[in-house]
């Protein structure tokens, strides 16, 4: 059978894979969730699938990492560590795999070295295979993670991110592999990370071949997306060229922008005389039988637009960004501009910004820049903070060439050379005092946090604290199926909900009436919990005067107001920083507020010299275009 099981050492795993007559499959459930369901597939669903997934005999199950760690606490209300513990109980043999963004870990910005090492150490207790990448293929950005994974005795899978274009030659990638091996040594699995599903089957086959020519024993793991509908073709080409592990997932949930169906891969390659090693086809089918009834509860999170998108070869957006870009276009009201953004502006921006790899967080920079260029009227007229950091080399050096001078001038003004000289290059991010952070968290929670809680907090401080408080209030909610947790429009009167809680205790909840108090201030929701009547009181939101007359300001009006010191938010965003205090003197160009949208941070600067008269917004607020942020009284 040659099945790979959890607990094998790296040497044994590599030996088994190399010696196997065929290829292995990684079930990239995490990527399926992220690319086609905005990362919302719940632990509840994964637990349903766990027994048959365990039976199936995958090389690994990718079930954590990427954006999922953040979404776990932010949207799914599940502890990312508890998730792994519970899955491990049901899947003792299957290796768990993660996707780690190197220095950016599971987030969007670089973390201090000691945080990276601490986070990797804690996750390495549960995660057997570590796929690590950097959107600039800058090896030093991955080094700390490499070291910690190897120190923990886990399987390291460094990635070369793949893209297309004149610079993206076999020579370049083979050299990149050499750079990686120089740091990691030979005992690795090498990932070709094709997050956009770019290139033809032939191109991928050639690349695999080129790497294996240079490094004959290399275990290559091909990761692709099915955005253009042709990843099966690329997988076949990769395996025929000698790739040993490929990514796919369960057909009951396959969509358009994530991995292709496992069963199709197996069936196709069989005809080519290649066997999926250790794989139990019946268990693969069984998993989809179990999952199929659940899919309808996730419909809301699927992309607004369904269907393969072969134009990905032009715009190169990674699978995970497809659904969210269309969602943003719908919410932002610029859907009609999508062809222009995707097929004209985005390719142009990619070339201008160095033709690097469109993957987190680089893909978000490309996307927001393209949108801003089309929406803002003036190209590069309003550079985001993240774009500026990219231009300054804060994420690492540009792989092929630096963007043209005029973009620097747009971003930093006529003195851009001085700015670049003074501020350019990667910053050494200073270590933070972990004991101090632990204490801060303890103060916020009112009890001593676990190391795992600290890990979660260090990555996403506000969201982590909110999540821990949520759990105190509502308990462990992963026990709720999507039919309950994701119910929209409320429940039916008399509807009966059953589930087992974290301790395994069965509960029956029967929905009762909902009644508003006489003065309308409160609403009582009645229900029977395990046949005991209970009711919960909710304070009704007071409709604010402003809500009724939501005035939509034009971009021009927002700019004019800003010039008068009435600073409004230019787009839908969350406030992530208030940089000034009331009464503070500010100069034109000085940062007032930092907004976050689409994971990108953008500063809002003062247009005038003056004094901060009033701060309307607060950190964490979700604001709409035109909402008041800060009032500055201009100096006459």
């Amino acid at each position: 059978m040659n099945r790979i099981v959890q607990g094998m050492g790296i040497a044994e795993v590599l030996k088994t894979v190399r010696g196997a007559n065929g290829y292995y499959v990684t079930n990239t459930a995490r990527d399926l969730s992220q690319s086609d369901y905005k990362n919302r597939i719940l632990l509840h669903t994964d637990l349903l699938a766990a027994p048959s997934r365990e039976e199936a005999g995958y090389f690994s199950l990718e079930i954590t990492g990427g954006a999922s760690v953040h979404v776990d606490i932010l949207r799914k209300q599940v502890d990312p560590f508890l998730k792994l513990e519970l899955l491990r109980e049901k899947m003792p043999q299957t290796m768990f795999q993660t996707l780690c963004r190197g220095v950016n870990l599971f987030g969007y910005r670089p973390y201090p070295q000691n945080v990276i090492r601490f986070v990797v150490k804690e996750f390495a207790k549960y995660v057997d295979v570590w796929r690590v990448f950097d959107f600039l293929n800058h090896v030093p950005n991955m080094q700390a993670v490499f070291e910690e994974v190897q120190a923990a005795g886990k399987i390291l899978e460094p990635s070369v991110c793949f893209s297309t274009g004149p610079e993206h030659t076999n020579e370049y990638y083979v050299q990149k592999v050499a750079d990686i091996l120089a740091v990691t040594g030979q005992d690795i699995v090498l990932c070709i990370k094709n997050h956009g599903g770019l290139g033809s089957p032939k191109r991928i086959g050639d690349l695999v071949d080129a790497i294996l020519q240079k490094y004959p024993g290399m275990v290559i793991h091909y990761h692709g997306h099915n955005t253009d509908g042709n990843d099966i073709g690329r997988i076949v080409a990769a395996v025929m060229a000698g790739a040993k592990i490929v990514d796919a997932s369960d057909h009951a949930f396959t969509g358009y922008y994530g991995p292709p169906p496992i069963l199709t891969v197996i069936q196709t390659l069989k005809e080519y005389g290649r066997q999926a090693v250790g794989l139990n086809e019946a268990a693969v089918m069984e998993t989809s039988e179990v999952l199929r009834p659940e899919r309808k509860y996730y419909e809301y999170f699927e992309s607004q637009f369904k269907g393969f998108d072969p134009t990905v070869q032009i715009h190169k957006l990674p699978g995970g960004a497809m659904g969210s870009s269309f969602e943003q276009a719908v919410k932002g009201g610029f859907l009609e501009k999508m062809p222009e953004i995707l097929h004209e502006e985005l390719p142009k921006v990619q070339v201008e910004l160095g033709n690097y790899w469109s993957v987190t967080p680089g893909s978000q920079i490309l996307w927001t820049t393209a949108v801003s260029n089309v929406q803002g009227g003036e190209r590069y007229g309003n550079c985001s903070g993240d774009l500026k950091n990219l231009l300054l080399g804060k994420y690492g050096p540009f792989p092929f060439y630096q963007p043209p001078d005029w973009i620097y001038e747009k971003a930093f003004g006529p003195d851009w050379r001085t700015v670049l000289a003074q501020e350019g290059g990667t910053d050494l991010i200073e270590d933070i005092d972990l004991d101090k952070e632990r204490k801060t968290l303890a103060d916020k929670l009112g009890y001593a946090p676990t190391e795992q809680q600290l890990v979660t907090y260090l990555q996403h401080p506000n969201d982590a604290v909110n999540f821990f408080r949520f759990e105190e209030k509502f308990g462990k909610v992963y026990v709720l199926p999507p039919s309950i947790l994701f119910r929209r429009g409320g429940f039916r009167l008399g509807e009966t909900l059953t589930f087992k809680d974290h301790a395994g205790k069965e509960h029956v909840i029967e929905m009762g009436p909902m009644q508003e108090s006489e003065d309308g201030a409160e609403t009582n929701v009645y229900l029977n919990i395990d046949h005991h009547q209970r009711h919960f009181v909710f304070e009704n939101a007071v409709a604010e005067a402003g809500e009724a007359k939501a005035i939509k300001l034009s971009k021009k009006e927002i700019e004019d107001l800003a010039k008068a010191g009435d600073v409004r938010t230019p787009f839908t965003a969350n406030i992530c920083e208030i940089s000034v205090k009331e009464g503070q003197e500010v100069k034109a160009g000085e940062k007032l507020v930092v907004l976050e949208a689409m994971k990108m941070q953008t500063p809002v600067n003062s247009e005038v010299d003056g004094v901060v008269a009033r701060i309307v917004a607060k950190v964490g607020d979700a604001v709409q275009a035109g909402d008041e942020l800060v009032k500055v009284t201009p100096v006459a």
Partner: protein
Amino acid sequence: MKKKILIANRGEIALRIIRAVQELGHIAVAIYETPDKDALHIRAADEAIWIGDGPRCDYLNIDKVIGVAKKVAADAIHPGYGFLAENPDFAKACENNGIIFIGPPSEVIQALGDKVTARRIMQEAGIPMVPGTDNLTAGDAGLREALDFADKYGYPVMLKATAGGGGRGIRRVENEKQLRAELPMARAEAKSAFNNDAVFLEKAVINPKHVEVQILADKEGNTVHLGSRDCSIQRRNQKLVEIAPSLIQDKALVDRICETAVTAAKASHYVNAGTVEFLVDRDWNFYFMEINTRVQVEHTVTEMVTGIDIVRTQIKLALGKKLAFCQQDVHIRGFAVEMRINAEDPQNNFMPEGGKTVSVYRSPGGYGVRLDGFVYQGFTIPKVYDSLLVKMTVFGFSWNETVDRLRRCLNNFVITGPKTTIPYYLKLVQDPDFKKGDFDTSFIETHSHLINYDDQASEGSKLAHLIAEIHYKRENPYAI
């Protein structure tokens, strides 16, 4: 003949009395202050007279209450408990105005209300008493008397206001230094609280059981007791939970206490309903404490185990009837427990929750449950009175059955709006010591962990809360 009876009280006891009055076929007249304008006793009574804006001062105003009684031509006044119930001047004013005071004669109230006089009466009757002093002499002489007493009997000692009652005006003194410091304070406090600065000392009985006996007596001197009650579960000398009969295993001891109570009542020429309170120490010595000359909050438990309607009997006795039964007719059956469900937040030092509106009121029912309350859904609890909402009295044939029923009833009792003592009691009735019936006055203090309840703690409740929120919000905030 139909009589008009004015109820000089409010809240649950006003309702309790109104019910008895109406059952007897008499006319019930309620009085109320402005903050009580929405109170239930006004609606239940046959007549309701507004007596002023209060708060409290009009219910306490003897002239006003007597004035109203005369105006409506009331034949009798029932004072309930608290307010004017144990004020001998009020009883006297009734007597002087030809109104029947439903309670003992004013001289009896006077004598028993003065703790020192009461002690003297009891001493003469041979009733066992905690060693104590007479009223302390004013100034340094009084301090010397106090110090001498404490030297003789040892610390701790209780420093009590002669005119105090209901747990007020009592201090426990641990040592000489504290005695010197507290004596003047106690005097000042007694002066302002009871308009009488007389204080005296008693030897402290450590962690006693509080056992009391219900007495009924007619004008001919026929006196019976209705058995014992245990009121040991107290918080800062305020009773929370009362039980009838006492759970003391030694029945002969309980009988002796009850007989002593009758002797004490007779010694004080007691008439009408009253309560003789005793302390029982760890060596099963019992000491007379005081006689309360009113109907007690906790009279319900005695009614449940004897079947005798105490308030009805009070009215009949006051109207000149003889006791219709003798001691042999009184039988105690089963157990009854009263829990005072107060609008208080036990987790915030029992802070009153007055001013809040009862948004949901769903009470338990079924066998063995009695509710004496005055709140209803939509009622806003006045801030200016006490926090008692409803007394839940539960009866059972055995102690175990009673405790089971208590738990069931508390589980089924839903009051929202104000926080209440319900979740605290729910924890209490599940405590092993309570279940065993093993408690003394230190119970609340030694079982302080009972305060650590979380009425929404269970995982099922928490998840239900989330489900309720998803239901309420419609646009599910967790499905974005």
